[in-house]
C-alpha cells in the first residue's frame, strides 16, 4: 500500500517536472522567435543604411566619377564611358566590391534609357536613388571634342532579408 502511494508521488512529480521543463522550452522558443525577428529587422535596417551611405559616395568613387576628365560638373558627376567599361569588369562583382544587391543608372533627360551595371540574383531588393550628371566625350563633325552631359538617376539596391 505504502509502495503504491510512493510510486504515485514519483509519477506525479515526474509529470510536474516534464510540464515545467516544457513550459520553459516554450517560453524560450517564444523569446528566441521575437529576438530573431528583431535581429533580421536590425540586419535589414543596417543593410539599408549601408546602401544609403554607399549611394551618397558612389558617384564620387573612382570607378564612377568624372574626376578631372570633364571640364564641368565635378560633384555627383558619373563618367558614362567608365560605367560601360565597369559593366564588363567582372572582378568588381565576383567579390561584390560595394556589398550591394544592384547598381543601375537611369537616364532621365533628354532621352530615357536604363543601364544595369550590376544585379545579383536575390529575390527581394530595396532601392535608393540619387540624381547625377552623366557625362561623356563626343566629337563633332569638325573633329572638335566636347563634353556631353545628361541628367540621370543612380540607383543602389540593398538586399532585403525576409522577416
Amino acid at each position, binding site marked *: 500500500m505504502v509502495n503504491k502511494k*510512493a510510486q504515485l*508521488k*514519483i509519477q506525479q*512529480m515526474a509529470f*510536474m*517536472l516534464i510540464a*515545467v*521543463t516544457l513550459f*520553459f522550452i516554450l517560453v*524560450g522558443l517564444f523569446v528566441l522567435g521575437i529576438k530573431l525577428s528583431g*535581429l533580421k529587422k*536590425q540586419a535589414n535596417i*543596417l543593410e539599408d*543604411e*549601408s546602401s544609403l*551611405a*554607399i549611394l*551618397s*559616395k558612389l558617384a*564620387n*568613387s*573612382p*570607378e564612377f*566619377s568624372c*574626376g*578631372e*576628365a570633364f571640364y564641368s560638373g*565635378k*560633384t555627383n558627376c558619373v*563618367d558614362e*564611358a*567608365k560605367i*560601360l*567599361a*565597369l559593366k*564588363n*569588369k567582372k*572582378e*568588381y562583382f*565576383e*567579390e*561584390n*566590391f*560595394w*556589398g550591394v544587391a544592384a547598381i543601375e543608372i537611369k537616364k532621365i533627360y533628354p532621352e530615357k534609357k536604363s543601364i544595369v551595371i550590376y544585379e545579383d540574383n536575390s529575390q527581394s531588393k530595396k532601392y535608393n536613388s540619387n540624381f547625377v550628371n552623366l557625362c*561623356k*566625350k*563626343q*566629337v563633332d563633325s569638325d*573633329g572638335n*571634342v566636347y563634353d556631353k552631359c545628361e541628367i540621370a538617376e543612380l540607383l543602389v539596391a540593398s538586399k532585403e532579408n525576409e522577416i
Partner: protein
Amino acid sequence: MSFKKKGFQVSFSWLFAIIAGIFILFLAIYISVKVISNQSYEVDTTTAKEIEILLNPLETGFEEKSSTTMTTATDTRIYNHCYTFGNFGEQGLQVAQKSFGKWSDAGAEIKFQNKYIFSNEIIEGKNFYLFSQKFEYPFKVADLIILLSPEKEYCFLNAPEKVLDDSEVFPKNVKLIDCSSDAVRVCFDSGSNCDIKVNMFSETVEKNEEKLYFSDELLYAAIFSDEEIYECQVKRLMKRASELSELYLKKAVLVKQDGCDSNVDGELTQFADLTEDFESSENFRILERFMIELKDKNDLSICRLW
C-alpha cells in the same frame, strides 16, 4: 542499555522537489549567462557594422583631407584586420566592449573590400579620432581612413611646411608644440629621442627598427599605423590601382571608338602590370617614375581619361 536512534526524516516528495529545483535553477542560470554573452556578441557585431557605415561619409569625394571624432557608448576595443587575397583584399573590423569592468569577447568580424583603414592592430578608447585623405596614384584610387586612439599622443618635431599646412585638420592628439613627456615623438629629418623618424627626401618612415616607404599622400598612414597593417593596406591600394588601370584601358577603347584618342594605352598597360606585382612599400621607389610619366601624359591629352 538501549540506544534511541533519532533520525532526520525527509519525505520523498521534498527530496525530489529540492533536486528538481536545483536542476531548474542551474538551467535558468546557464541559459541567462548564455543569453547575456550572446547579447554582448550581438552588440559588438552591430557596433562593428555601424562603424563601417559611419566611415562612409568620411570618404572625402573632392575634399583633400578631413577629420572627425567617433564616440562609442562604452570603452571599446577595435581590432583592425587586413587581408590581401583576391582582387582587392579585404578590410576586417571586430569590436569588443567593456561591461561591468570586463572586456567582452570580440563580436563577429565585419569584412568589406572598399575601405582602407590605417591604424594600430588594436585601438582602445571611447572617443576615436578619424582622419581621412584622398589618395591619388596618379588617378584617384581611394580615400584613406586613419583611425587614432585618444590614449596616444603624437608630437611632431621639426615638421616641414607641407605638414604644417595640414595642422588644421590634425586630430587633437597630434601636437606640434606643448607635447607631454610620454607622447610618441615623430621627428622630421632631424631630432633626438625619436620614436618615429621621417625622412621626407627618401620618403621613408622608420619605427620599431623597420623602414616603411611612402608616396606623398601616404605619409600620415605610414606614421600612424602598425607596420603590418601599413604594408597590407598599401598592397590592397595597389591592387585597386591595377584594377582601375584596366578599367581606364577599357574606357580608352570606348573613347577611341567615338573618335577621341587618349594616347596613354602603353603606359597604362605597363602601370597595371607593375601595380599588380606590387609586393611591399619598397616598390614605390620603382613605381614613382612610371606614375609621374603616366600622369604627365594624361594631363597633356585632349581626351583625358581621369
